[in-house]
């Protein structure tokens, strides 16, 4: 016993104890709810059995209800579209800005950092601002588009079913650009400068250098940024809550918002947890691939 105590206080046990402290917390408040969630999705849960320890087991019934729900496939489609569009544009615009700020001029790194001001504000506040910008009658976006002659009449960004999802996409791209840009800047800074000089001497043009040197050298960074992008995009909840609440008629609903709606607005906790299990499974697979790829990178 005293040997154990001594090891804890003064030996290898000290590191282990410190690591276990945090791990224990995460187990109780993250891993256990995760497992509990899977159990919930196989049970019948309503407001009356909420406090019970043992609830009736219903097998796959919750999943069957879920698949049979008329909005299921459209919500899943929206989720895929939301993630895909956000990633493509965040990455494209972020990469462009990162390349631009890579050039040598006064205040480049300071100005680049200022972009993060948008990232640091609560997403819900960003949603409020965008809701006002998107407003149909007096919104500034419609005014700008109309005075530039891009559109002829007002667009009702948030209340038109065919457009509402794209409005949330626009707001989320805006939120995601700075993070993408900063991570890609770090990757760009890691490419040795003399390589470019050598290529320029050999007569490679700007486009050739980008295509044959920058892109291949950035492969691992791009992989990391895309995986992180998927993870963060699937965490987006506040923008949906403040902009469209999934509406009108689920036209802008995505899985992570739908799951919450089912549980906390329809009190259909069993189905909500079934959606949650499906999405968490997906996120964990993406995270697994991401973490494994960065680990390998590290050892190499």
């Amino acid at each position, binding site marked *: 016993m005293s040997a154990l105590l001594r090891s804890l206080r003064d030996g290898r046990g000290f590191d282990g104890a410190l690591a276990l*402290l945090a791990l224990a917390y995460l187990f109780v408040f993250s891993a256990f709810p995760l497992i509990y969630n899977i159990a919930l999705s196989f049970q019948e849960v309503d407001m009356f059995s909420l406090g019970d320890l043992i609830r009736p087991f219903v097998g796959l019934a919750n999943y069957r209800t879920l698949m049979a729900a008329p909005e299921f496939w459209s919500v899943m489609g929206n989720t895929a579209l939301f993630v895909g569009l956000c990633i493509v544009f965040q990455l494209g615009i972020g990469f462009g800005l990162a390349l631009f700020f890579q050039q040598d001029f006064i205040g480049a790194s300071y100005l680049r950092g200022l972009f993060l001001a948008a990232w640091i504000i609560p997403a819900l506040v960003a949603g409020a601002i965008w809701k006002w910008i998107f407003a149909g009658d007096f919104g500034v976006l419609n005014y700008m588009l109309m005075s530039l002659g891009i559109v002829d009449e007002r667009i009702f960004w948030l209340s038109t079913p065919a457009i509402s999802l794209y409005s949330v996409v626009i707001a989320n791209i805006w939120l995601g650009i700075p993070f993408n840009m900063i991570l890609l800047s770090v990757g760009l800074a890691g490419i040795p400068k003399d390589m470019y000089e050598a290529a320029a001497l050999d007569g490679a043009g700007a486009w050739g250098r980008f295509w044959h040197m920058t892109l291949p050298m950035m492969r691992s960074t791009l992989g990391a940024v895309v995986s992180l992008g998927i993870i963060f995009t699937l965490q987006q909840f506040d923008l949906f809550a403040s902009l469209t609440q999934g509406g009108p008629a689920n036209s802008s609903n995505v899985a992570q918002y739908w799951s919450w709606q089912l549980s906390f607005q329809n009190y259909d906790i069993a189905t909500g947890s079934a959606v949650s299990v499906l999405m968490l499974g997906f996120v964990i697979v993406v995270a697994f691939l991401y973490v494994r790829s960065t680990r390998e990178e590290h050892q190499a």
Partner: protein
Amino acid sequence: MKRYVLLVIALCFLAIYLFPLYWMYLTAFKPSSETFTYPPRFWPSDPQFNFAKVFVEKKMDTYLWNSLLVATGTTALAAFFGTGCAYALARVRSVWMDVVLFLILMMQVLPPSLMATPIFVLFNQVGLITTPRFAVILAQTAKVLPLYIVLCRTSFMQIPKELEEAARVDGASRVTAFFRIIVPLARNGILVTSVLIFLQSFGEYVYSRSLISQENLQTATVGLMNFMGPNTTDWNGIMTYAVIYVTPIVLVFMLLQRKIVSGLTAGALK
């Protein structure tokens, strides 16, 4: 010459990008009659200062106090549970520590809106829901703890091992060396990470909305949502609320910008 042209272009990009923030401040200062003029004005002709009025009418003192409480509690818990783990992960290289790091990284990615369902049912069963702000702190800590550990770990890795070994030769125990030598040396990294965690938790929404039912215990984000309502037109008021809420966050960020950016980038890609 080329460098000045680039600077001007950079400023243009920044101006376009930060326009929504400008629009928020502008709307907050406009009189309500001017908010609904068409075409909209891009400069306030008659700036208003409705901050005190909105602050009192929307009970922002209660909301902001609750947000402050949640953010402070979360940061304290994350620092308590995370600092030691970050140190251990930076110092020891073994298969076990790799497993620990892997598990922590996996816990980082769980979307809070999906975790809200099981956490609500679980907290309901063990009675934590009767102390809702504490429940939010516990849930939010689980969300941010991995990030705290990953970011702090990089600053622990920069401390030379020899410093600790020297202290050990002089007779300090591991515990003493940790608190007297290591933590003071890493305090900059710990502070910046804590500020980042604090700012994130200050804007927390999902758990506050899901776990807190009494209005006087709710956070500033939920207050803003209530204010927005389904058919609101009081955009001056909403933007004034937003300005009051966001300005301290933006100020802290501007002061620590360089350190936050370098801390973030070091942690995220390693």
